[in-house]
C-alpha cells in the first residue's frame, strides 16, 4: 500500500499519528535530534575507583562501544555528553563531580556504574555519599561490583533507547506494573483521576 493511499483515510487518529512519526521525512525535528544524539554520545574521561578499570575496557576490542557511536572518551567535560560515575563517591569528591557535571553542556546524561555510586555499596560510613543521585540526576543505574564491561554496555544501550524516547519498561513490563509507580500515581492524583 502506498503512503498516499494510506493517508487518504485507511488509518485514523493514533495509528496515523504513529505512522507519520515513523517515516523518515515526516519525523519530528526532536526525534531526529534525539536519534543523532543517542548515536553520538561521548562519555567524559572520568574514573572514580575500581569500576573505572572495567569502564576503560568498554572502549577496547572485546566490547567496543565505538560500535554504538560512543566514539571516544572526551578529555574535556565541555565536549562530553555522558558522565559515568565509576566507583564510590566520597563526600569530598561530590562537589567536584557536581562541578564537572555543571560544566557539561546540555543535553547531558549520567550513568551510575556499580553498587557504590548507586547506593554507597559496602561503604556505609562517614566518608562516602550513599548514592550519587543525592546530588546528581542519574539516568541509568548499572548494578554490579564491579559490573562487567558487557553490563555497562547494556546500560549504555538502555540509555540510548531512553534518549530516543522509548525507554525500556524493565520490571514495569515484567510485572505488568506500568502506572503503579509512586510518581505515576501522584501525577494521576494531580490530574484528578481515581487511583
Amino acid at each position, binding site marked *: 500500500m502506498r503512503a498516499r493511499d494510506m493517508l487518504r483515510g485507511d488509518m485514523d487518529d493514533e495509528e496515523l499519528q504513529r505512522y507519520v512519526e515513523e517515516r523518515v521525512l515526516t519525523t519530528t525535528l526532536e526525534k531526529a535530534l534525539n536519534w543523532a544524539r543517542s548515536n553520538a554520545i561521548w562519555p567524559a574521561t572520568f574514573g572514580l575507583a575500581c569500576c573505572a578499570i572495567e569502564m576503560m575496557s568498554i572502549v577496547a576490542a572485546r566490547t567496543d562501544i565505538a560500535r554504538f557511536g560512543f566514539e571516544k572518551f572526551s578529555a574535556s567535560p565541555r565536549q562530553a555528553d555522558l558522565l559515568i560515575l565509576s566507583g564510590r563517591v566520597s563526600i569530598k569528591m561530590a562537589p567536584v563531580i557536581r562541578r564537572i557535571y555543571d560544566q557539561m553542556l546540555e543535553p547531558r546524561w549520567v550513568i551510575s556504574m556499580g553498587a557504590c555510586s548507586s547506593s554507597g555499596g559496602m561503604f556505609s560510613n*562517614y566518608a562516602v555519599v550513599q548514592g550519587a543521585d543525592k546530588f546528581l540526576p542519574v539516568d541509568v543505574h548499572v548494578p554490579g561490583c564491579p559490573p562487567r564491561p558487557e553490563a555497562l554496555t547494556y546500560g549504555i544501550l538502555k540509555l540510548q533507547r531512553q534518549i530516543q524516547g522509548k525507554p525500556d519498561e524493565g520490571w514495569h513490563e515484567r510485572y505488568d506494573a506500568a502506572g503503579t509507580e509512586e510518581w505515576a500515581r501522584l501525577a494521576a492524583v494531580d490530574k484528578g483521576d481515581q487511583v
Partner: protein
Amino acid sequence: MPDAPGLELIAGELNEAFAEAVLGTAHAHGQATIEVQPEPILDVLRWLRDTPGQEYTFCASVHGVDYLPQTPRFAVHYQLLNMARVERICVKALLDDPEDPEMLPAVDSCVSMFPTAEFQEREIYDFFGIEFRGHPDLRRIFMPEDYVGWPQRRDFPLGGEPVLFTHNEHKTPRWYD
C-alpha cells in the same frame, strides 16, 4: 629491633635523661615499644635519633590511636627505624582526653625533626582530632575542610545509612511503607 634487654637499657637511659619520661615498655610479636609521657616526646625522639649507638634516624610512620575505654585515651605512635642495623622501635606518646569537650588533646609536633611527619600529623589531626603544637600547617588533609567531627574516634558514629537485613528489619517497624 632491639631485643628485650636492649629495650630495657634504652628505657633506663631515657628515664635517666628525662626524669621519668618512660611509662612502660613492651616487647611482643617482634616489636619493641616504649610508652612515654607526651610532654618530653620531642626530647625522647631527638635522643633516639642523635645519641651515638641509637641512631634511629628514619621516621617510618606516625599513627594516631584511640583506646576509648582506657585512660589515657589517645596515643600517638612513632615508628622509628635505624637504617644501618635495620632495627625498629615504636614510641607511644599517651595523651589524656581533656575534660573540656571543646579542647583537643595536644602533643608537640615532630615536623622540625622529621619533615616526613608533616602530612602524617595532619592525617592524625584530621581523623582523631589530636592537635600538634608547632605544626607548620595543621589543616584537614583527607576529609573536606568544612567537615565537623573526628571520624576515626571510637565514639564517632559510623555514618552511612542503615541497611535492612532479615536480622534487623524488626528494628524499623513498617519499613516497607
